[in-house]
């Protein structure tokens, strides 16, 4: 696959919860091996959009989509596509760290086992924990409960857990919003490092974070009918210095939130 080709192509995407339209006519492309930040005020649909990329919205019975998302050039929502398989290729990290109430080891091993990992599980666990910059802190207590870790460590464990499955894309839904500033910086640094080998889409309500971390930024807003639409999408430096839309400028300069 050509590295210049976008990994996701979203066209005329709308998402409904029953009759309520949460996303309206989104058109955008997600660049490969880059960090794309989705920003916007609360309720603008940025998390909903994120969950479209790994079909997590399938788990909500009332949700349905219109329009199309191409992943590596083929329709993500085609009836022949198995959402379970998709989610092992497109990993996700959640807003609140959600390690399973198992050992650190078992947390990372879970994804490997369910997906039938053929290699050495111990090696894969070490590799994933190293990638998530957690190995040195936990290597002597892999059998301890993940719940004993600090919030920031738990979140890095969740990232390691996602990496272990060897995804192509990692979706992050406000991954640092429940963490203190130091843990937040550690996560941001990690996200930058990971972008060398992964495509990352990150939702954040923290504009400094978007500016610090991402290569591209997409700004969403909710319209009069409360459905979210894409206002502007471009290089982060452009969005934060010379936004095309007045609404983008008003938002990033903090005139509304």
């Amino acid at each position, binding site marked *: 696959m050509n590295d210049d080709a976008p990994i996701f192509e979203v066209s005329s995407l709308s998402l409904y919860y029953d009759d309520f339209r949460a996303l309206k006519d989104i058109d955008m492309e997600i660049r490969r091996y880059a960090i794309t930040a989705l920003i916007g005020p609360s309720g603008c649909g940025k998390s909903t959009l994120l969950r479209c990329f*790994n079909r*997590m919205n399938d*788990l909500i*019975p009332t949700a349905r989509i219109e329009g199309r998302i191409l992943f590596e050039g083929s329709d993500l929502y085609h009836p022949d596509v198995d959402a*379970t*398989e*998709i*989610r*092992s*290729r497109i*990993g*996700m990290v*959640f807003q*609140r760290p*959600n*390690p*399973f*109430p*198992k*050992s650190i080891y078992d947390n990372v091993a*879970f*994804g490997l086992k*369910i*997906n039938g990992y053929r290699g050495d599980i111990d090696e894969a666990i070490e590799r994933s924990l190293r990638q998530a910059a957690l190995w040195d802190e936990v290597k002597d207590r892999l*059998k*301890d*409960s993940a*719940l*004993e870790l600090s919030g920031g460590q738990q979140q890095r464990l*969740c990232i390691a*857990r*996602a990496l272990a*499955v060897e995804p192509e894309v990692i979706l992050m839904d406000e991954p640092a919003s429940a963490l203190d500033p130091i843990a937040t910086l550690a996560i941001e640094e990690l996200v930058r490092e990971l972008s060398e080998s992964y495509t990352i889409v990150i939702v954040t309500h923290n504009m400094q974070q978007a500016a610090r971390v991402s290569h591209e930024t997409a700004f969403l807003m909710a319209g009069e009918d409360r459905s979210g639409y894409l206002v502007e999408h471009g290089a982060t430096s452009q969005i934060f210095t010379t936004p095309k839309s007045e609404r983008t400028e008003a938002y990033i300069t903090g005139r509304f939130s």
Partner: protein
Amino acid sequence: MAKSKVNFDPRLARRKMIGGVFYFVFLCAVMVGILSLLVLLTRILMEGLPWLSLGFLTNYPSRHPEIAGIRSAMMGTIWVMALTALFTVPVGVGAAIYLEEYAPKNRLTQLIEINISNLAGVPSIVYGLLGWALFVQIMSMGRVVLAGALTLSLLVLPIVILASREAIRAVPNEYRLGAFALGADQWQVIKGAVLPSAIPGILTGTILALSRAIGEAAPVIAISALVYLTFVPADPFDQFTVMPIQIFNWVGRPQDDFQSLAAAGIIVLLAILLTMNALAVILRNRYQTRSED
């Protein structure tokens, strides 16, 4: 005081008095339960303890109180409870998993849920008559251990389902989402993320439901009214009796000695009950530390 608040009339003394009264009322409410339990226990222990001996546990019932024992009833109870557990755990937990994790939330599942809650409140004698008609008569099993166990299974199944559902519902949804996001399918999510957290609650609920069944006389009377059983069931198709029936029979006799035998029987029954409840607590604690360690 430095400054008094002119716009308020705090009436502190009065508020404290009312607070004290309610504290006392609630304490009394607790004491009613504790005291009546204490009175009951002392009475039973005083009357039954002298009759409690190894012989009481190993002898068969007899018309002579001094050599009468509870062996057949105790073994019958153990047989019936073991089979009941065997039937209710897989069925009850399975039904709970289906209702919580698979079933779509629509009117039909709502109707099923309401009915299960209602079934949990049906008087136990009704289950006894159902079991008698269904297992003893229609399926012509006879008045055997299996029929008794199936009847008690029907009785506790709704409680096991309700308790298991509560336990499953208490599992944070984040665990499910986390597992789905790693590419787990529905069963892998349940096995890997839901059940490990739900098992302590399921175990506790199930054991508590079983300890309700162990004290039930009414439904088993409908299946087996036997009292003078001088053998221990060897397989599920043997005739049987259970401890509540034996105790009920002794209580109904005019001689004082049999009253005391009944008290001794109650002590044994209570001991088994307490053991089961303790087991529930131990299992819950062990699973909790295991899943958090």
